[in-house]
């Protein structure tokens, strides 16, 4: 195969060459340093998602490092373009062609190596930031790999390192939360104790939703019949915005509520209070037993009152026609 590059010499640094290169390098260095310092010291403390939880803090750090790694690249490219536009524009009346350079192996190789190094650095750093904070608040599916270490127990007591299990149930179009360590009670409010490892189990009863607790830096999709586990430890008291992050139908935009991070003892008394109330009015017994996923069409309590078609109750909307010959 014939050579792609005709035998034109690579540009030897003429008297004009180093001037451009050196100029660019110096300006770039100054601007990059300034940008990186600005990003790290001025901007970083205000970067989202804030520091309310360990996952959020790690994400904030991660975004800051990404910004600091990206800023020199962006500045380099932008600076070069501006320089080129200013310095190498065609003067009016000049119709001649530019100096023909087909390539420069050294520059090409440096660029390729340089970008590869940056990419590999980002990969290593990203993996570390993913693994260390137990998955960085992202939903890890039913078999999580990166977990927080907290003791698992069927009851939760404050100020021991017991992991609090919270099940987040998404349904069209509201969030509810179940606490299996408090008898499986369910609540429309999300309360969490501070400084406690929390294990979220996110699931859905109908379509795909996504649990996004912004200040906690947790995002996990809620899929029907799938248990999506995410870990976080809240580090500060305050209010948490919970929004649905996956289009789930008409009121997706209105599917949000507010959670609160409170001191552990206050949390325990709240949870116990809700559990007692639900036990007293009978709703706790009426709920399905706590499970990691639910098939809402299976309702053993309804016995012979249950109209089932092709194994599906009215709670599934009579999806299959009753006259379907396969129906038993």
């Amino acid at each position, binding site marked *: 195969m014939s050579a792609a590059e005709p035998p034109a010499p690579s540009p030897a640094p003429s008297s004009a060459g180093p001037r451009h290169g050196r100029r660019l390098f110096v300006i770039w260095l100054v601007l990059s340093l300034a940008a990186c310092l600005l990003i790290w010291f001025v901007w970083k403390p205000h970067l989202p998602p804030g520091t309310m939880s360990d996952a959020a803090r790690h994400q904030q750090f991660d975004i800051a490092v990404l910004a600091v790694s990206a800023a020199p690249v962006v500045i380099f490219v932008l600076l070069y373009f501006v320089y080129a536009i200013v310095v190498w524009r065609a003067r009016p009346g000049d119709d001649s062609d530019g100096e023909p350079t087909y390539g420069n192996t050294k520059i090409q190789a440096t660029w390729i190596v340089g970008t590869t190094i940056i990419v590999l650095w980002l990969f290593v750093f990203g993996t570390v930031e993913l693994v260390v904070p137990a998955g960085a608040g992202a939903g890890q599916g039913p078999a999580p790999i990166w977990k927080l270490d907290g003791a698992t127990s069927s009851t939760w007591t404050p100020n021991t390192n017991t992991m609090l299990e919270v099940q987040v*149930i998404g*349904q*069209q*179009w*509201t969030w*509810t939360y179940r606490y299996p360590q408090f008898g499986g009670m*369910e609540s*429309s409010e999300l309360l969490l104790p501070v400084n406690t490892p929390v294990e979220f189990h996110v699931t859905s*009863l*109908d*379509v795909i939703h996504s649990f996004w607790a912004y200040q906690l830096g947790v995002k996990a999709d809620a899929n029907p019949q799938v248990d999506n586990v995410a870990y976080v430890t809240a580090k500060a008291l305050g209010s948490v915005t919970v929004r649905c992050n996956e289009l789930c*139908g*008409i*009121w997706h935009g*209105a*599917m949000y*509520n507010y959670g609160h991070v409170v001191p552990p003892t206050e949390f325990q008394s709240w949870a116990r209070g809700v559990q007692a109330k*639900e036990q007293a*009015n*009978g*709703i706790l017994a*009426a*709920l*399905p037993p706590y499970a990691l996923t639910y098939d*809402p069409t299976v*309702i053993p*309590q*309804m016995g012979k*009152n*249950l109209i089932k078609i092709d194994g599906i*109750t*009215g*709670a*599934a*909307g*009579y*999806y299959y026609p009753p006259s379907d010959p396969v129906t038993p």
Partner: protein
Amino acid sequence: MSVTARAVSLLAAFLVVAGLATFVAIYFIGGASAMPTVHYAASGGQVNVVLQEDPQNDSSSKPDWVSYYVQDPASQNWVHTTLFSVPAGTRVNVTLYGYDGCTPLRNNYFSQVQGTIGNTVTYSQFDQHGKEYVTDKTTQVINAWSDCNVGHTFAIPGLGLYVPVASPNAELSANNLCSESPCTTSGNPYAKETFSFISPAHAGVFRWQCLVPCGGGFIDGNSGPMQTLGYMMGEMDVVSS
């Protein structure tokens, strides 16, 4: 083509496209506001809202969709809409007639009453002959899973209000449900439920929905009437008085 011919055809094409775009835009926005809003005014510091939910409705295109109706306070007529307005910071007394049969809730947690005054509802159930077989039962929970007694819910998530709506019992649901619309109390089994809540102090629009998957024929039952204004979801407009 001559310049005039080109100009004329350009103008014609522009008018056609603009006309189409305007038609489509009005069809959207017009469609959204084609439903009337029923306005409730306060009397004696309270406001009485009357709603009913029917197994069928009187629209021509979707007659088999379950639907809510709102009663106009002035004319006492049932309006096929789900938009109503209440004054801010007032006690709202809601009377709900449930004509539709029972369906199990998707999440039985919503059998529990939340957000009303006292966290209770009071309901009575009547059969098609008018016999009241459950009288004024005040409860915190109407269990949708143990008996067949819940038809729909009325929920305003923005206010934390979740109310299960009682329905005729299982046997009546299977055999004698109201087949006209809007339904009337004579000749049809129904449940009548009352509850109260305080409307928020600030004006705003609050969406409300049903949490029972009653959209028959759709997977999960959550589409169709559940996702269409005017049927099983609507908006409560809180207006400052």
